[in-house]
């Protein structure tokens, strides 16, 4: 039992300079919640690093709520209610549009690529040449009628 206390004391010793004289959540614990929030007023500054007086007050709010026993999620919800969803570092699931569109974009891009690949691999016949000078670029087209004609001609010839 006594050894246990001694061990506990020794473990807690290095923490003494960090935990300030007043009991309650340490600055790190407050920062842990604050780092998931953004300053409602400053531009794009996380709440744990924002140096203004207003941010200091908001960190105090977090500290007070931690002392009251509120969970991190409850504190985040409170800030979202008071200051809008923009203060959250991570948009909540209710922000469907935020999460849905990247998926849509990716699927659309894949669809375009697949379409292009298939289109690009169809057999082609050269049928005409562009008349612009300095270019002898063949115009490639895959007309199903001409393909069919060629096929039937080949069959007829053989």
């Amino acid at each position, binding site marked *: 039992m006594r050894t246990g206390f001694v061990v506990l004391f020794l473990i807690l010793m290095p923490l003494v300079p960090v935990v300030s004289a007043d009991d309650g959540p340490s600055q790190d614990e407050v920062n842990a919640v604050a780092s998931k929030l953004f300053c409602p007023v400053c531009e*794009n500054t996380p709440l744990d690093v924002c140096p203004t007086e207003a941010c200091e007050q908001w960190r105090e709010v977090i500290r007070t709520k931690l002392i009251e026993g509120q969970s991190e999620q409850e504190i985040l919800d409170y800030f979202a209610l008071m200051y809008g969803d923009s203060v959250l570092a991570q948009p909540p699931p209710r922000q469907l549009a935020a999460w849905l569109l*990247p998926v849509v974009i990716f699927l659309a891009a894949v669809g375009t690529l697949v379409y292009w*690949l298939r289109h690009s691999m169809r057999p082609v016949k050269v049928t005409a040449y562009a008349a612009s000078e300095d270019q002898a670029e063949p115009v490639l087209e895959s007309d199903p009628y001409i393909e069919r004609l060629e096929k039937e001609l080949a069959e007829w010839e053989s």
Partner: protein
Amino acid sequence: MLADIGLIALILGLAAAFYAAVAAIYGSLKGVQGVAWIASARNALMVVWPLLTVSCGAMIGLLVIGDFQVEYVAMVTSRAMPTYLKVTALWGGQAGSLLFWSWVSAAFSALVMLRKWDSDRALLPYVVAISAITEIFFLTVVLVESPFAKLDFVPANGNGLSPLLRHPGMIIHPPMLYLGFVGFTIPYAFAMAALISGRLSDEWIHASRRWALAAWLFLSLGLVLGGRWAYDVLGWGGYWAWDPVENAALLPWLTGTAYLHSAVIQEKRGMLKSWNMVLITLTYGLVVSGTFLTRSGIISSVHAFARSAIGPMMFGFLAVMLVFSVYWLLRRLDALRAEHRLDALFSRETAFLVNNLLFLTATLSVFYGTFYPLFTELLIGEKITLRVGWYNQVVGPQLAAIVLLMGIAPLLSWRRASARRLGKAIWLPLVLSVFLVLFLIVEGINSVGALIGFGISLFVALVTLLEFWYGVRTRHRAKGESYLRALNEIVVRNRRRYGGYLIHLSIVLMAIGITGSHFFQEETQGTVQRGETVTLGGFTILYQGLNEWAESDELMISEAKVEVYRDKKLIATLKPRRDYYLNMAQAVTIPAVRSTISEDFYVMLVGWEQIGQDQATFKLYLNPLINWLWAGAVMLIFGTLVAGWPSRSALAVVSTAYRPGTIVTRKAGVA
């Protein structure tokens, strides 16, 4: 006096650009007789730069002297600012930065005029016209912002630059970015010239390849420098915040990188002709919309300039540019036919296409995220901003996939890759990477993102290094050269390929730095008395005391002294400080950092109240592997220089560039 000179030079520059545009268009319409007009237009465009140099020089003079009667000078400088900052104040405010942009743009235009135009002289009038019209737009905007406008009294002192800008980063970060942004105008001008003139062969891509590469390099550096600056002064150990203006600079970089890759396909296989046009137009369009976003204030940001009247003008330019480009793209779409088709799905061509797919997905995601507040306000009436969490989760994996692709694409052959050859080349890097991941898991790392990041990094590094090895070994065996000599030979003979590999290696280094610092950052905060300690990781700081003094009558500095210990040994003495600017009532905290190859130990003096002599609050950060990020960026410069360095034949061409008569002679009947 100086202000008047500056304004007159500015107006003359605008007049020259206007003449250049008109003459180039007229000359191109007149056919053969228009050749003299085109030559005249070219000369006029080249004259814009010296005129703007005079204008910028006048402004710099005013800034350094401190003529506060000029409104811009009063806004961005103050008496106590050091001279180097006064010079950089040229781009410290809206009007000056637009003047600087115009100067850079004129420089690029002049340089392009100096190149040898013999082989693609048909494109010249259009390149002149587009460059000139762009210049006209920006100079008009500058005149509307009137940088040389005078106040009707002379203030005793100016405001000075915003405190966050008073940093050596101000010297190089904006100029690099501007070089990158403006640089992309040239390939765009070439692409449009090809479209309008109907000369749809590959000459536009050949002609503009090195310009695109240079612009890409400048933009990459600008982005990295911005990150380094943020790391130095923002004080949260971060270097990228997904801020709208940062994103605005990233977007053209993403499409620009995609373009550099798909341009290779066009040159090698004659495919993707229309797509490359689209990509370069998109890149330039993103540059213009980026500058619109930054300067109009429609999206709020730390970087944004004050709201001003030029928002509508920039919007107009963007609209005209988009409509004009899309019109010509669609009109010539049919003629931009590929010379070849895809031979096999499993090929390097497909890998390049997937590369483009991933880059475009990332571009669209970042674009969507940046403009999300606008979309939500339009649709639901409430402005919602997406933050770091969203970007990291959405764009992070996309970028990781791109890095992974860097390790696979070089192993696929053109036209048709064989699974067997791929297997032979890939098994060793793959096995070693898996070993690394297992090793890391055993060592206690359980973050999936970090494991993927390190695993992919090692994989790509090994694949790329093996490419060098195979090349060297082949030459050594075939020619008997020493390994070192062989290495030199393969690089010199195939600069583009090996330069590209060097760039890939740099990206891997940066990826390692990003993975380490993102997933393993540690932090703590503590309030201590003099003589007390705060600990983080293996490091302990001992607070020694605080020094406060007035650096100038505008600046109060509070500097703390801490000793840093590790394993009971003193390893450094750091002095984090807080600079308080009295006239702006704003403070900047400058952290003190101890950097090594394995991590940065970062100490910041926090607190917005008066910091006491006996008590101070410190915030400590441990950023593992962060310096790999900056090292990778330095290697990137080297790799790009290798990739873009002109070969001997190209150099000979440039040296005979501007001689009278180089442009003119044309056979009758050939337009």
